[in-house]
């Protein structure tokens, strides 16, 4: 319970007033010489316990009445029974909104979404608190929005729904920076979220540093979480996992892979449901039904004939009927002729060069075309950099003009994998340098590798690449700041990545030559690594790209005026490009922005897991429901006044003399006639 006028609580010692008056009365006694002590003694012996209890009850009720008056004038606020952290009016109220698509969920019988409910309740709560400043954080990449009137939060356009996930740790970091920079006083941080795992990233290392940073702040900071942790029953989400053009002799087909995901609402065996999926393409609409029996249903390779004269690129949308979450019922897709899988191989060892050319030149799909060009180290300036997706570099690190070429290639989104040269010469690139070759009399095998992401990640089916079966007989030393993707015994990296804004720079510390490793003979790992790198590089070359909302903001934000919005983006028009589901076009290239795939499958974190993130900080949670009309914070002084009245009534009842039999006046003879 908090108070809007906490300074009035200094009057709380007045609660002892009845006690003091009682003690003063006890001091003001009269002394009487008394003869009839036997009656007095027996009177004290008669039901003394009840008398004392009644006496103390009266005292207690009087003290309660005084306490209720004082608490009432302190203007107490109710924050739910679980939030009993003491505190007064904060100087700054910080609102962190989770605008992710999952927050668009609503109950079947409610009109408001979770986000709408949260905004409305937070607006009322912050307005009641009467903080001097109200700051709203919705996107860590954008500056916070300071509100003159907290009630405006309920209708704030930029606080509307987004397709991007909320990065709660980054938003909290932004809030921390704001508190530090603005030298705010006592602050209250309200977080409105549905506790999805992808939004909270509870395993991120940032949480511990955030806790320490907030705990070290000189001003008190309280955290209040307005959580919507209930799974949404019956919610379906649709997405397109692949959209590609397939040209045949006299026709051209658009092949779509559509996935319908059902929200895990705790039911062990959900009922099968038939979902009509509407596909909009070039003004034409078609519907295909998908039967969802489990949590997910896939419609793979659904071909739509476009005709022989079809445009080489285009965009469309798939949608499902309205359900409890409108944000995941639509999905935009773009398609174009696939770019050739072109790879440049720069090698100083012919044997290795042939091996790499072979690995890069075999496409993973029969419909794709793959090309691998051998480029001598001296002729890199004349190579077709603009058309390449990947560069495999087994030569001394670039120098001179080659450095600029490679850097430009990487900044464009290209991928480079460096293998150690035959003779390391001490050149440096991207802060890294090859040292000397080391022969291992006892062949080494990788001890560990990243299976969750990047080039060595597990397959979509969850199977791990056989990295552990590789045999390394020679490896080259590497110095510089890298992120290992696979490590040898002793911690030396086998495959490492250099952090870059765009594109990718990888180092492999051994070569595919049989004398160095079994990379070529156990070709699965090398082939997967190269083909995945080509896929990544193709993203920058493709005329049609599918981007996740949020990440797309970095791409679209470079020259936002040059992008033309072709569809979508109506949820929050004022939001930054890349935050809303939409289709953009620039110079013949198409970009579709949609919610990330994790938004459809993210689980809801248990409450104790979230609460544990705020361990050591002043934290309270309240749980809401979409469409809820309860106030998070409300003044409850009336309850205290009623308590005071009840206490006074109780005191009066206890003070009332008990009914006695009629007794004669004391001056008259009480005995009647003499016996």
């Amino acid at each position, binding site marked *: 319970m908090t108070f809007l006028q906490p300074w009035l609580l200094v009057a709380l010692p007045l609660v002892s007033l009845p006690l003091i008056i009682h003690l003063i009365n006890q001091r003001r*006694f009269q*002394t009487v010489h008394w*003869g009839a*002590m*036997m*009656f007095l003694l027996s009177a004290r012996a008669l039901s003394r316990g009840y008398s004392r209890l009644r006496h103390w009850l009266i005292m207690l009720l009087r003290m309660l009445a005084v306490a209720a008056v004082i608490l009432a004038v302190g203007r107490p606020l109710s924050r739910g029974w679980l939030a009993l952290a003491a505190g007064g009016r904060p100087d700054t109220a910080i609102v962190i909104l989770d605008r992710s698509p999952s927050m668009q969920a609503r109950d079947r019988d409610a009109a408001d979404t979770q986000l709408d409910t949260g905004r409305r309740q937070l607006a009322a709560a912050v307005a009641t608190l009467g903080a001097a400043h109200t700051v709203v954080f919705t996107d860590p990449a954008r500056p916070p929005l300071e509100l003159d009137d907290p009630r405006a939060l309920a209708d704030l356009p930029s606080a509307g729904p987004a397709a991007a996930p909320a990065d709660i740790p980054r938003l909290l970091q932004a809030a921390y920076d704001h508190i530090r920079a603005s030298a705010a006083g006592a602050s209250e941080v309200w977080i409105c979220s549905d506790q999805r795992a992808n939004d909270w990233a509870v395993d991120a290392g940032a949480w511990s540093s955030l806790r320490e940073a907030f705990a070290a702040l000189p001003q008190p900071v309280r955290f209040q979480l307005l959580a919507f942790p209930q799974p949404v029953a019956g919610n379906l989400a649709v997405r397109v996992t692949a959209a590609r053009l397939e040209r045949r002799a006299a026709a051209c087909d658009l092949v779509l892979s559509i996935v319908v995901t059902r929200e895990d609402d705790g039911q062990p065996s959900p009922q099968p449901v038939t979902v009509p999926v509407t596909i909009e393409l070039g003004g034409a609409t078609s519907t295909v039904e998908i039967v969802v029996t489990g949590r997910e249903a896939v419609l793979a390779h659904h071909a739509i004939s476009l005709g022989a004269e079809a445009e080489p690129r285009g965009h469309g949308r798939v949608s499902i009927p309205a359900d409890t979450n409108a944000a995941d019922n639509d999905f935009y897709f773009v398609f174009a002729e696939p770019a050739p899988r072109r790879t440049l191989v720069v090698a100083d060892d012919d044997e290795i060069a042939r091996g790499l050319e072979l690995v890069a030149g075999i496409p993973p799909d029969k419909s794709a075309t793959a090309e691998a060009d051998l480029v001598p180290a001296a002729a890199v300036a004349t190579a077709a950099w603009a058309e390449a997706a990947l560069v495999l570099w087994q030569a001394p690190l670039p120098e001179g003009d080659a450095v600029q070429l490679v850097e430009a290639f990487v900044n464009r989104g290209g991928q480079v994998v460096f293998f150690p040269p035959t003779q390391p010469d001490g050149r440096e690139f991207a802060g890294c340098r090859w040292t000397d070759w080391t022969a291992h009399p006892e062949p080494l095998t990788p001890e560990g590798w990243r299976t969750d992401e990047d080039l060595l990640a597990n397959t979509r089916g969850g199977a791990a690449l056989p990295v552990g079966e590789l045999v390394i007989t020679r490896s080259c030393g590497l110095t510089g700041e890298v992120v290992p993707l696979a490590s040898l015994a002793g911690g030396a990296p086998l495959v490492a990545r250099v952090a870059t804004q765009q594109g990718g720079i990888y180092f492999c510390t051994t070569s595919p030559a049989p004398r160095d490793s079994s990379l070529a003979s156990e070709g699965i790992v090398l082939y997967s690594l190269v083909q995945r790198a080509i896929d990544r590089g193709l993203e920058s070359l493709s005329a049609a790209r599918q981007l996740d909302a949020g990440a797309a903001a970095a791409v679209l934000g470079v020259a936002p005026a040059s992008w033309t919005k072709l569809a979508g983006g109506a949820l929050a028009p004022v939001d930054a490009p890349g935050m809303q589901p939409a289709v953009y076009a620039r110079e013949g290239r198409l970009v579709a922005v949609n919610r990330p795939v994790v938004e459809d499958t993210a689980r809801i974190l248990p409450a104790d897991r979230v609460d544990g993130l705020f361990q050591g900080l002043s934290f309270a949670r309240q749980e809401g429901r979409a469409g809820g009309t309860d106030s998070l914070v409300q003044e409850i002084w009336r309850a205290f006044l009623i308590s005071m009245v009840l206490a006074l009534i109780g005191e009066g009842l206890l003070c009332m*003399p008990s009914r006695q039999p009629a007794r004669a006046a*004391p001056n008259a*003879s009480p*005995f009647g006639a003499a016996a």
Partner: protein
Amino acid sequence: MLTDRQPRSFLDPQSLARLAGVPLVARTPMVGGVSGRHASPHRGSSIEFAEYRKYVPGDDLRRLDWRAFGRSDRYYVKEYEADTNLRLCLVVDTSGSMAYGSAGTTKLDVARRIAGSLGYLAAQQGDAVGISCVADGIVQSLPPRRSPAHLRLVFDVLEAARPDGGTRLPEVLHELSETIRQRALVVIVSDFFVPPPELERAFNHLRFRRHDVATFHLLDPQEVGFQFQRPTRFLDLEGNTSIFADPVDIADRYHRAVESYLAELRRIVLATGIDSHRVLTTDDVEQTLARFLVGRASGQGARR
């Protein structure tokens, strides 16, 4: 008859003059030394016929009923009731509790008036008057005598009585039961702040010794009404104990205790057959005494 010229504060001559019209009589036969106006268990020479008895040698021939002899040819002696004087034993409680009086008049003051007046009235009709002042024992005692000088001594004892000490009235009454030699009218003036069962045994003891027992139960109105308002420290008049109490809290139970005590006393009075009068310190003593005297006069002539 009385030669006491010293004014006594507890005697009201006008009141005594009005009360003198009603004789003080005993409810049971008395054994006196001289002739008086009270019934005696023995046969005497009064004009009230009692019975015929066969003549035995040695009887006074003057009391032989010749007419009966003439009718039956047998010797009968005609006997008459004897009237004798009364031995009035005044027992006055002088314990500390008798010092209490909320209206300016203490219970001991009232006790003096009652005892003094009764002593005077008894002496006026030729009865013997004695007094015992009792507290936690017999503080002072004068045996009953008929002389006016003795009455003066009784008044002196009354005047000198001071309330002090505790109450051991039952024990004292047991002692008096044994020490008063002949049947007497025992008038006890006290507040009777003792456990009723002990009092009952003492009264029974007095009755067993064939004493005519009369009691004046003195109480102050405040002791009954308990009309205190402020927290009060009650200091015991008969000891060093004190009780601190808020009268508002305790009045209820105090009244219940008083009522229970008075009900028990009423039962004892009925069981023992004593002549009991309850007197508030604010009551008119003359009316109390008049009620007492008239009540006894109506039962005059009882012989046992």
